[in-house]
């Protein structure tokens, strides 16, 4: 952000506080991650070290990180175009009963995932759906509300005149999508994909119940480590591992968004 002189001091203070609010919870995590011993009432760890790191590595965090990344990416790749199509249709007001359709698409937001996963588990097992496929399908459905809402708003603000112009100038349908629609909607698409990625990245219940232990992702490793006591440094390392990639991704998405706005 260019430090525009127009930004009033109050706003800068506000931003600073907001940043602090977001960063502060990470500070104890960082301390714990490198604390081999930190007991009450010491203000700072008494012994520094990398035991948390080695323990986290031993618990299979590396492989789990890969699996989580892959799962998040697959969910994003599937849920983003689906959400874009639904969003475009809903924004065009050409869908009969669009409110009802929207309500159905939004329903995963209000249904507790635990109940859904538990109910569908038996059904998917009866249908002999492979565990990993079941996880992906359910997570894509869970991600659809986010991608649909994001893309519906984007399409509502999107001027179709640009597309018509391009078509009038002789661009093919595909070329219009590629050269006009996608660049205009890139920031929204990136945002939607980011949200969908997060759904796959952070899921616990569906991965555990439907995945049947086939898919040991980061949240699963983290939860089983956190359910014990005395693991604090390992849990801190695992938590940071879960928090940092989305933050990095968010930075990329924000950058993309800013470039899109120019």
């Amino acid at each position, binding site marked *: 952000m260019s430090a525009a002189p127009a930004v009033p001091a109050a706003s800068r203070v506000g931003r600073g506080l907001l940043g602090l609010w977001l960063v502060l919870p990470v500070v104890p995590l960082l301390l714990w991650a490198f604390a081999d*011993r930190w*007991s*009450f*009432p010491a203000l700072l760890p008494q012994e520094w070290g990398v035991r948390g790191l080695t*323990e986290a590595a*031993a*618990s*299979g965090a590396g492989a789990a990180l890969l699996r989580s990344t892959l799962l998040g990416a697959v969910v994003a790749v599937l849920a983003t175009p689906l959400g874009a199509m639904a969003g475009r249709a809903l924004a065009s007001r050409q869908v009969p009963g669009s409110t009802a359709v929207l309500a159905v698409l939004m329903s995963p937001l209000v249904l507790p995932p635990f*109940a859904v996963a*538990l*109910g569908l*588990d*038996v*059904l998917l*097992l*009866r249908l002999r759906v492979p*565990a990993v496929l079941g996880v992906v399908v359910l997570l894509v459905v869970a991600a659809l509300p986010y991608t649909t809402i994001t893309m519906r708003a984007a399409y509502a603000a999107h001027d179709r005149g640009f597309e018509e112009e391009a078509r009038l100038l002789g661009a093919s349908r595909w070329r219009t999508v590629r050269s006009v629609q996608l660049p205009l909607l890139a920031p929204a698409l990136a945002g939607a994909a980011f949200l969908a990625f997060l759904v796959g990245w952070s899921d616990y219940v569906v991965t*555990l*119940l439907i995945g*049947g*232990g*086939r898919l*040991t992702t980061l949240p*699963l*490793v983290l*939860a*089983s*480590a*956190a*359910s*014990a*006591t*005395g*693991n604090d440094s*390992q849990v801190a390392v695992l938590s940071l591992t879960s928090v940092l990639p989305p933050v990095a991704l968010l930075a990329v998405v924000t950058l993309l968004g800013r470039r899109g706005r120019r």
Partner: protein
Amino acid sequence: MSARRHADRRARGTALVAGLLALTGCSAPASEPTTATARDWEDVLAEAEGQTVRLWMYGGDDKGNAYVDDVLAPAAAELGVTLERVPIADTGDAVNRVLSERQADVTDGEVDLVWLNGENFATGQQAGAWLCGWTSMLPSMEYVDPDDPLVSTDFGLDVAGCEAPWHKAQFALVYDEARVEDPPGSVEELLAWIEEHPGRFTYPAPPDFTGSVFVRQVLYAVSGGVGEVPLEFSAEAYDELAPELFDRLAELEPALWREGSSYPQELGELDQLYADGQVDFTMTYGPATLPDLVAEGTFPATTRVLLVEDGTIGNASFLAVPATSGSQAGAMVVADLALSPEQQFQKARPEVWGQYTVLDPQRLPGEFRERFAGLPQSEVVPPYEELSDGADPEVDAGWVTALDEGWRRQIAAG
């Protein structure tokens, strides 16, 4: 501080889920247990060759994870069985998975072996989720005393050949010799000690696994001994015995740490209070980990286990094979391997995991009897025989739930 927990904790939620499953109206599967056909062990070994066994176990215990990955799995590989560990936060998750698979008539499920006991075993048993009648086939069972109540029943429920013993646990009260000059000799004396030394004792709030055991230990004491408590739960027995227990605990409250206005939410917090010298006692269901905690300086060097004349509660944990498993032969081979003297000895070594064996020393070959006897002795923890002298059995899972709930209503809210 190293992780020290038990597979048997965190059973809550399973029963609720089982109830939910019933409510969803899915046709209830036959609740009769599936019984394994008796056959030659050579047969089982031959079928197991090349199978993959997925062992679902509580993943919060680093030493336990390392034991399975580095000791048990390589030994299983030598028998041609691939052992995969599935870490879970709550053993109930495995039971839920098995119940779902059973409803869907799956015959090649994802769970081949579960480390469990107590409520989780009972819930699965109710739904006929476990394979039964197979433990008698295991060659290693010859080293297990069939009359040992700790391994023939699981929280009051007959094991009935539906799970193979894995290791034993013994509840122990732990104190700092340097700070407690007159260690009490019984649970009653401990209660008196607490009142004479206000603020120096507390216990984790049930349903924390260890706090819950402590409450049961007090129940035995105020009821006049374990003999006075019917192990099978009934509302009448509860109404008769529980008021005295909760009256006593309420009476005790002002003498606890922070006058009982707050309790440690889990054992780890109590351990921390003890390590920091804020209280003089802690407690554990896995005393074999104590020497390590002392050695690494987490606990003071003067930490000792309190031996009480009424004996403390002991239990065993087990390995169960789901009826839905497609690798049952492989699972049995792993369960047998885990029960073999060599594996039980490795698991008992404090540097490996430090879990008490379920084998009867009298039945072991002489060589192993010596090896077990040669396990490092510690000043901190007396040997298992002494520790488990006059061990009390666990009450059944119904008691556990009722007492935890009663504690919440009368002590936490009172």
